[in-house]
């Protein structure tokens, strides 16, 4: 329940409503326990984008600077969409993987805890 008190009706649209992205949707990606990146990155992509593009292109571009990247055993990676566990299908699209506007994809790489085990 809102506690916002105003003198007149107060209705504004969200600055990030899906319709503002011209057929694309926002997607956040975070590598857990690798805070050197300090923040998840955000992309605007068509919902038809295959998940393999997220891994092979966008995640690789951002995260491959980290020495842990090459050591990832992809069969052990644990994925979450927000706080919900899920298993992405590389060959299916964002939409087919159930990933919607402004979802935060988090992935953990067991045994890899960043530079000298700092979580960075």
């Amino acid at each position, binding site marked *: 329940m*809102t*506690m*916002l*008190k*105003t*003198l007149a009706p*107060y*209705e*504004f*649209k*969200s*600055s*990030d*409503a*899906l319709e*503002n*992205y*011209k057929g*694309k949707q*926002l997607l*956040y990606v*975070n590598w*857990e*326990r690798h*805070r*050197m*990146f*300090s*923040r*998840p*990155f*955000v*992309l*605007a992509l068509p919902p038809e984008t295959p998940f393999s593009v997220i891994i092979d292109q*966008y995640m690789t*571009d*951002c995260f491959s*600077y980290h020495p842990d990247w090459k050591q990832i055993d992809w069969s052990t990676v644990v994925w979450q969409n*927000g*706080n919900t566990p899920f298993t992405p299908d590389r060959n299916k699209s964002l939409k087919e993987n159930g990933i919607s*506007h*402004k*979802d*935060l994809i*988090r992935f953990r790489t067991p045994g890899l*805890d*960043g*530079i*000298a085990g*700092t*979580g*960075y």
Partner: protein
Amino acid sequence: MDMKVAKKLGLKERYSLMTRDLAWDTTFQKMEDVFPQTTYEGIKIHDWDKWEDPFRLTMDAYWKYQSEKERKLYAILDGFNQNNGHLSVTDARYMNVLKLFLGSTPPLELMAARGFSMMGRQMNGAGPRVACQMQAVDEYRHFQTQIHSISNYNKYYNGMDEFAHQQSRMWYLSDGKSFFDDAITAGPFEFMVAIGFAFEYVLTNILFVPFISGAAYNGDMAAMTVGFSAQSDEARHMTLGLECIKFMLEQDPDNLPIVQRWIDKWTWRGTRKLASVGMMMDYMLPKRIMSFKEAWEMYVEDNGGSLFKDLARYGITIPKCFGQTIEEKEHVTHQSWIGFYMKPEATPFHTWIPSPDEMDWLSEKYPNTFDKYYRPVLEHLDAQEKAGNRYNNKTQPMNCQVCVSTMKFNEPGDPMEMCFRESEYQGEKFHTCSDHCKEIFDNEPEKYIQTFISSHQALQGNCEPDGVDVNAPDYKPGSQMLDYWKLDKRATGDFNGSDDQKNFAAWREQATKN
């Protein structure tokens, strides 16, 4: 016959004549129609005459004090500038503190001036109205003097000339913009708590006392003079904010839960805004005076703690976030600096890895955290930079919907985990960086769904310089953000090898030879 001389007015009478006596009750219009904003937040005021102006300052005394301060200030600035003061600082790295300060502080002082002008109109008691007007003038003066004090440096160093353009556009200035947008679009009483309490008490104490002492330690007489000149006003502003809180609490018991919520909210918002000031103290001052952690303990835990003890008699409790701020004081400055270091092309100031002796200082000041969590990362980044593989993260960041900080804070209790919170409003997801930002969002989602988030706006095609066709087939959103920001490329990247570093060394050499 003796001349009859009228007795000089006492302070109390003068104050009464020059403030309370200037007000009147309206007759043609209802008072509630003239001052509609003082009731809609739910705050109940029964007797405006119970307002006790803590300084009993009148306009005529105010002009006299302020003009005296102004004359001293500009005399010192002139002397400093004529004596090539820009070469007397410890190290040209120091300039980057001023660049960050310039973008983040004077524009907020201007917003405060606008806010207090509005509140001076909205308060229907003469006491607070006059006090708000004087604070509005103070804030305008701070805005001007801060810019004047830095203008001399702008002649010599890069990256200082577009701060006004950048303030409402650049990603790292969005936290301050959002703080003031939130405050100025609130009701008048919330604004008084937001600025009079959180901004003045939580923020300016640390900004204008330990940080500005740091400026003095580093040889910057200009910033030091401005800071000390401003801080005597800030003391008055804090007292005004506190008086407003006490006044609301004494007027009606129904005001307590509303005021408590504002205190909880704005203490947290002030804390988030302080992360960058802390980073300036711990990482950016070449000669350090005290750590952010020590400043936090002295100014917030001790001073702020006793303030809350004082308010406890009204039923006010310590803000909910207090425990988390005590935990975070060990971490935020390191997390912030690494955050800035990773974006070398996206700020109009330079970054660097602290030298070995600076890291030792950080170890000493942060024995619980620095060596365990942050030193290995900084040393790794340093080794990479020296090997020609400097870290440069070119992605767009995720930001908190409320404080607009980039998501970089850890989960309370676990420094290795990132903290994420999520809310849903009208079918859309909104992400926040902490329980406290989530609570602020959930209380008033209508406000925060409008937040300006630089990365999102870029992806919508709203951050381009004039003339870019966002409908062209080869258009890439955000690809020309640096031009949109009017970023001086000479001011970006590493300090080592920069123009500022080279010029400073060359000019100092000249200054000591014939």
